[in-house]
């Protein structure tokens, strides 16, 4: 028997490394079973996850395991009698989370040991590279990608083959292939999961791309906040180099290409390709004017091609299975699958890969199990600070670049943050403007100053100081910033504001006119009081109140002094009788 623990970043944060240590401590010298680890299984809501394998067959998946469960797991692995771990086994309902997915980019995640080249090879790894290098011309590779319809998974959705072809046609002394792994959207972690859990698939996809455009060097620009991803990729690059999969004369084909990692230093704008190139050159990450496009004049002024991690992770599957198989999935203008990071007020959060053409409802209710605590679904935020909030009545929108853009949101890189009735949409818009105002590089006046002014107005509104005309002023600023910004950050920064105004204008109006927050989230607009009929005078809230704003005698109704109350909400969570009224 083989015990395999899911040790991606989320798993470790949930305690997987402690489980690993606890099991290891119980193992004897000539133990009858082996212990290993795998990357992100994608079921974050069930972490830490421990899989029991018999050879290649998964026999039991144990979930929400703690270090205290180590003894029963070891016992089960030794004896083969699994009755002791029955209480930890995943439920049939939760198994559906994975069963309803179609995994291409994530095909190896949670199944193989991320740092084992043998594991990757045993799962058909590097066969596509061999096929491309030995039996296809670079033009044929580009043609296959064209047939597949693969489009950039970083968010913009530009056809991959077109970029590759432009870089191939471009003349230069050296060409570079760059991977954008600067996953900056708050609420998105698909790329991190792929690099952590399946680094060789990124290397293989990039090598095929490098062969197609004629690049001699590959660079992965990865967020410094992803230490495990960097470590696993370093190990994988090293192993690939030793196996002659990187470096000179790869697999004896005469094709030479090497690879290195560049750790980013924390700047959202570096997700924009020309800013990323500036950063690679050691400078402040400020976008360049296009044209010239990177395909003509990119890194070190040489032809360069930049794709996102998930895009590359699809490439070897396409070469192995053919472009038509990929194009058979999806809709007319969006082919293949897309990975989403499903988070927020969702019951089952994690990584979801589904064919294009499914609806938002399929993902949020069919796979994610709907909203936590039986609350009402309000909106889903897609595309991070560049995207927008899609309301409940558009839940049947299909996942497709065009259909999502029509809602005012975007496909984005795959962040899908679900919100319930308790999330204030004005607050949400402010949250994203706080982010973009901070992350604006400052090059373009409209973005630098426009985002700051929008942030000021939104701050005023959530504090109850909004004025008539603020909504119109916001709309005007949105137009100006969209038109006046050079890069994607500025051009899309107004989207969170525009979509919340479009779908939740009544919430803006309630804040401005009635000084009320319908979601009861904006602290400055709330008042706390006690329902005298419900209060039993248990004194618990008075004891909990950090501001000593609650007074009253034992067994008699208490009162809150509104002038002292700091609106922290502790009384609400401490009251067992539901007597605190929040308005």
């Amino acid at each position: 028997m083989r015990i395999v623990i899911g040790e991606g970043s989320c798993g470790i944060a949930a305690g997987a490394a402690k489980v690993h240590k606890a099991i290891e401590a119980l193992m004897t010298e000539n133990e009858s079973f082996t212990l290993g680890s795998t990357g992100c299984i994608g079921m974050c809501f069930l972490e830490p996850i421990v899989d029991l394998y018999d050879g290649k067959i998964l026999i039991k998946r144990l979930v929400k395991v703690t270090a205290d469960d180590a003894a029963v797991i070891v016992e089960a692995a030794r004896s083969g009698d699994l009755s002791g771990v029955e209480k930890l086994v995943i439920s049939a309902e939760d198994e559906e989370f994975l069963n309803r997915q179609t995994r291409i980019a994530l095909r190896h995640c949670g199944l193989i040991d991320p740092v084992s080249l043998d594991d990757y090879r045993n799962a058909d790894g590097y066969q596509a590279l061999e096929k491309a290098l030995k039996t296809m011309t670079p033009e044929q590779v580009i043609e296959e990608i064209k047939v597949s319809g693969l489009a950039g998974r970083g968010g913009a959705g530009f056809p991959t083959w077109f970029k590759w072809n432009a870089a191939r046609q471009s003349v230069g002394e050296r060409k570079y292939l760059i991977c954008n792994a600067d996953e900056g959207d708050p609420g998105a972690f698909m790329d991190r999961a792929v690099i952590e859990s399946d680094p060789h698939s990124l290397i293989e996809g990039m090598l095929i791309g490098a062969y197609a455009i004629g690049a001699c060097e590959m660079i992965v620009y990865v967020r410094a906040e992803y230490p495990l991803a960097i470590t696993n990729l370093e190990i994988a690059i090293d192993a690939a180099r030793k196996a002659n999969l990187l470096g000179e004369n790869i697999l004896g084909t005469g094709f030479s290409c090497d690879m290195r990692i560049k750790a980013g230093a924390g700047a959202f704008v570096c997700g924009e390709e020309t800013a990323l190139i500036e950063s690679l050159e050691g400078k402040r990450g400020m976008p360049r004017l296009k044209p010239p496009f990177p395909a003509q004049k990119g890194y070190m002024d040489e032809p360069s091609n930049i794709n996102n991690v998930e895009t590359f992770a699809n490439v070897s599957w396409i070469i192995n299975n053919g472009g038509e198989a990929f194009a058979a999935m999806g809709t007319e203008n969006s082919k293949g699958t897309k990975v989403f990071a499903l988070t927020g007020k969702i019951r089952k959060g994690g990584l979801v890969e589904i064919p294009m053409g499914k609806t938002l409802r399929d993902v949020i209710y069919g796979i994610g199990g709907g909203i936590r605590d039986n609350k009402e679904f309000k909106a889903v935020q897609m595309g991070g600070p560049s995207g927008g909030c899609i309301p409940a009545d558009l839940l049947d929108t299909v996942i497709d670049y065009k259909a999502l853009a029509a809602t005012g949101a975007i496909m984005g890189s795959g962040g899908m943050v679900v919100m319930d009735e308790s999330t204030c949409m004005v607050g949400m818009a402010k949250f994203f403007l706080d982010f973009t105002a901070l992350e604006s590089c400052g090059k373009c006046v409209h973005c630098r100053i426009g985002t700051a002014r929008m942030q000021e107005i939104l701050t005023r509104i959530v504090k109850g100081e909004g004025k008539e005309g603020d909504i119109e002023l916001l709309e005007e600023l949105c137009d100006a910033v969209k038109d006046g910004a050079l890069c994607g950050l500025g051009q899309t920064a107004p989207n969170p504001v525009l979509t919340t105004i479009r779908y939740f204008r009544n919430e803006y109006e309630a804040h401005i006119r009635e000084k009320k927050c319908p979601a009861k989230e904006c602290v400055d607009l709330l008042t706390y009081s006690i329902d005298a009929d419900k209060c039993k005078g248990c004194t618990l809230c008075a004891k909990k109140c950090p501001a000593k704003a609650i007074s009253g005698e034992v067994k008699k109704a208490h009162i809150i002094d509104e002038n002292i109350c700091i609106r922290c909400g502790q009384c609400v969570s401490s009251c067992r009788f539901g007597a605190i009224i929040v308005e």
Partner: protein
Amino acid sequence: MCNCSCQGPKSDLSLLDDVLKEYGGSSGNLITILQKAQNIYGYLPKDVMYCIAEKVGVAPADVMGVATFYSQFRLTPIGKYLIMACQGTACHVNGSERVTAAISEYLGIGNGETTADGLFTLENVACLGCCSLAPVIMINGEAYGNLTPDSAVAVIKGIQEKEGK
């Protein structure tokens, strides 16, 4: 050693020798050099930045420009424990503001500040990527998830006890 004339406390610049030998040849490595320097000193002291500028062959203003552009770089020393409070979207939706406010109030420090005893630095950060555990804080690399204002303060108190404060 470089012979810069900058003011302030002197850092041991010999610690930079290996880094500059490996990466000093090209201004394209400036970000990598600053990252390595910060690993050595815990932050980027002024004299270190002057020294790097001289060895790499760029203006000190360019080094300062890069150091202030990226959120990873710090110009002041940090405490023994770096509390990174995640402000990502999933954490925001799940109440990170209240968690951060509770820590801030308990320690009496704001974003980017360090406690007088040098034990804690509080830093608001963009997404840590542990969205399913939201709201999350990370202290010296270890993540604490599903926090409430009370449980977050309890984590800090636990560290204080361990440190005998």
